[in-house]
C-alpha cells in the first residue's frame, strides 16, 4: 500500500470538497470556476509526474502506468475545458454552479479510477461513482423538463447496464476465483471452451457497451445528449466514452486476453452496426445536440473497429483516436454553447448565416466539423487513419472498407451544418457575441485540432508508450 501513488486522486477529492465549501461562503460563482480550473491543472501536474512510473499497489487494485496517466490527463483536460465552457454558459440555463463544478469533479474522480484500476471490484465502484455523478449532472437543470427526462432515461438504462455488467463480473469471478484482472487472465484460459465463459464475457461487454453508446445499447445517447445541459453533453461525449474504452481495453487485454478470437468477433459485429446506425440516423437530425449524439455513436463505432483490430501493439491507434476526438468534440461543443448562449437555440436551421454574424465562431466550429469528418491535416484525420490502417494490418480489410463508406456518409451531415453556416442567408443578422471564456475554450481546442494533426509524431510516440503496458 503506497498512499503517495494516490496523490492526484486525493488532491482531486480535496479540491472537490474545497469547491463545495467555497460555494457556501463565496457568491462569485465565476471565481469558483477559475479555482476549479486551477485545481484541475494542479492535479494534472501531479498525474503527469507519474509518467513512466509503472507500478501497482493496493494488492493490484491500483495500477499506475502510462496508460492510466494518459487517460487521467485526458479526463482532467476534458473536465477543465468543460468548466471553462460552463463558466459563461447562460445564467438562465444553469444554477448552483459551485455544486455543478463539485459534482463534475466527483465524476472525474470516478473516471480516473476506472482507468487505473486492476480489480473488478474497484472498477465497479469507480464506474458507479462516475455514473451517479453523471446522472446528477444530466438532470442539473431542474426546471427544464428535457433535462429531467434526460437524467431519468440515463439513470434507468445506466442502472440496468451496470446490473448486466455486474452479473458478467460475478460469473467471471466464479470461473476464476479472483477479482484481480491479471489473475483472471491467468485462470480464464482453462475455462475458454465453456459457454458460461462466453456468456460472462458477453454480459461484461454489453454493460460497458452502454457506457460507450455502442449499438444496440445506444438508445439513451441522442435523448440524453439533447436534454442534458450542454457542458454536461460535452463531458459525456468525450470523458464518459473514453472511460468506457479505458475499462474495455484493460479488461480485454489483461483479463480476457486468452479469449481474443471471441471478443474480436463481438467487437467486429458491434462496430459494423454501431457505425452504420449512428451515421444513418444522424442524417435527418435538425437539432445540433442530437446530431452530435448520433455522431458520437458513429465515433464509438470507429473506436470499436480499433477494438476489433486490437492485436499486440494495436492500442495506440485507439488512444490517438480518443485524444483527437476529445479535442475536436470539446471544441464543437464550445461553439454550440456559445451559439445557444447568444440565441437560445440548438436548431441547425438557426445557424444560417453564422459566418457573417460571427466569423470566428463559424470558423472554429467549421474546423471542428472538418476534423470530425477526417480532413487532413486535422486531428480527426489521423485518428481515423491509424484506426483504419490497424484494421487493414490485421486483415480486416472489409471492416476498414465499411468504416470508410461510413465516413463518406458522415461527410453529408457534417457538411450540411457548414453549408448552413456559410451559404444560407442569415435570418437574423445581429452579431453573435462570444464571451471570453468560451472564446478561449474554442481557441484552445481549435489550435489543439491543428496541433495534434501537424505534430502527430510525438503524440503518437506518447500513445505508443501509454499502450505498451497493455500486455
Amino acid at each position, binding site marked *: *500500500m503506497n498512499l503517495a501513488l494516490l496523490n492526484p486522486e486525493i488532491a482531486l477529492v480535496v479540491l472537490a*470538497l474545497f469547491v*463545495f*465549501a467555497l460555494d*457556501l461562503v463565496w457568491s462569485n460563482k465565476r471565481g469558483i470556476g477559475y479555482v476549479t480550473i486551477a485545481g484541475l491543472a494542479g492535479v494534472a501536474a501531479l498525474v503527469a509526474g507519474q509518467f513512466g512510473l509503472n507500478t501497482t499497489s493496493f494488492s493490484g487494485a491500483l495500477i499506475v502506468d502510462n496508460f492510466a496517466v494518459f487517460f487521467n490527463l485526458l479526463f482532467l483536460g476534458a473536465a477543465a475545458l468543460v468548466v471553462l465552457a460552463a463558466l459563461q454558459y447562460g445564467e438562465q440555463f444553469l*444554477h*448552483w454552479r459551485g455544486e455543478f463544478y463539485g459534482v463534475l469533479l466527483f465524476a472525474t474522480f470516478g473516471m480516473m479510477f476506472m482507468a487505473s484500476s486492476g480489480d473488478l471490484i474497484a472498477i465497479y465502484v469507480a464506474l458507479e461513482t462516475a455514473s451517479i455523478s453523471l446522472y446528477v449532472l444530466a438532470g442539473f437543470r431542474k426546471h427544464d423538463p428535457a433535462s429531467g427526462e434526460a437524467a431519468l432515461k440515463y439513470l434507468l438504462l445506466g442502472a440496468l447496464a451496470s446490473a448486466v455488467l455486474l452479473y458478467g463480473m460475478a460469473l467471471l469471478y466464479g470461473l476464476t476465483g479472483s477479482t484481480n484482472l491479471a489473475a483472471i487472465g491467468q485462470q480464464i484460459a482453462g475455462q475458454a471452451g465453456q459457454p458460461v465463459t462466453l456468456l460472462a464475457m458477453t454480459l461484461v461487454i454489453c454493460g460497458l457497451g452502454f457506457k460507450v453508446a455502442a449499438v444496440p445499447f445506444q438508445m439513451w445517447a441522442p435523448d440524453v445528449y439533447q436534454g442534458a445541459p450542454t457542458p454536461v453533453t460535452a463531458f459525456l461525449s468525450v470523458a464518459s466514452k473514453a472511460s468506457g474504452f479505458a475499462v474495455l481495453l484493460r479488461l480485454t487485454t489483461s483479463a480476457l486476453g486468452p479469449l481474443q478470437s471471441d471478443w474480436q468477433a463481438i467487437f467486429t459485429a458491434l462496430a459494423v452496426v454501431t457505425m452504420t446506425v449512428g451515421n444513418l440516423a444522424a442524417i435527418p437530425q435538425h437539432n445540433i445536440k442530437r446530431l452530435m449524439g448520433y455522431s458520437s455513436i458513429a465515433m464509438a463505432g470507429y473506436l470499436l473497429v480499433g477494438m476489433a483490430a486490437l492485436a499486440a501493439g494495436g492500442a495506440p491507434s485507439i488512444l490517438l483516436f480518443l485524444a483527437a476526438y476529445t479535442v475536436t468534440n470539446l471544441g464543437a461543443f464550445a461553439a454550440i454553447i456559445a451559439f445557444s448562449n447568444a440565441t437560445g437555440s440548438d436548431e441547425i436551421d438557426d445557424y444560417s448565416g453564422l459566418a457573417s454574424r460571427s466569423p470566428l465562431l463559424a470558423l472554429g466550429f467549421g474546423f471542428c466539423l472538418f476534423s470530425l469528418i477526417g480532413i487532413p491535416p486535422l486531428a480527426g484525420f489521423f485518428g481515423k487513419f491509424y484506426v483504419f490502417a490497424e484494421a487493414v494490418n490485421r486483415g480486416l480489410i472489409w471492416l476498414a472498407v465499411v468504416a470508410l463508406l461510413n465516413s463518406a456518409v458522415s461527410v453529408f451531415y457534417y457538411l450540411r451544418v457548414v453549408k448552413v453556416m456559410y451559404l444560407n442567408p442569415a435570418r437574423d443578422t445581429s452579431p453573435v457575441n462570444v464571451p471570453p471564456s468560451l472564446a478561449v475554450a474554442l481557441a484552445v481546442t481549435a489550435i489543439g485540432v491543428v496541433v495534434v494533426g501537424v505534430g502527430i509524431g510525438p503524440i503518437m510516440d506518447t500513445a505508443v508508450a501509454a499502450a505498451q503496458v497493455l500486455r
Partner: protein
Amino acid sequence: MNDSPLWPLAVYFLLVLVVVGGMVLISWALGQRHHEMATARPYESGVARTGTARVRLDVKFYLNAVFFVIFDLEAAFVFAWAVSVRELGWSGFVEILIFVGVLLASLAYLWRLGALDWSSARRRPRR
C-alpha cells in the same frame, strides 16, 4: 457450514407461525362482526377526518431517508472495522479515518447547507 443443528430454528419458526396464525384465527372466530356506517371509516371512535389523505408530502421526508441510507451504510462499514480492530492495526485505523472523514465533511456540508433543519424558515435561499 456450522455444525449446530438447525432444527430448533425450524421448530421456533413453526411455533411463531402457529402462535400468530392462532391469534388471528381465534379473534376472527370469536370476535363480533358488524357493518355500520362508521365501521369502514378510519378511526372508528376518533375524530372525523378533514380533507383528503392524499396531500403531498414534503420532500424533506425523502431527503431524511437518503441521509439514513448513507449513514446506515457508514455504520455497517465501521462495524466491520470494529470487529477486527486489533488485527487491522494502524493501517486499518487510517483507512477508516479517511472513510469517516470524507463522510464527516459531507455531514458538515449538509449542516451548513441547512439540509438538516426541519423547518424551512432557517434555510438559506441559494442560487
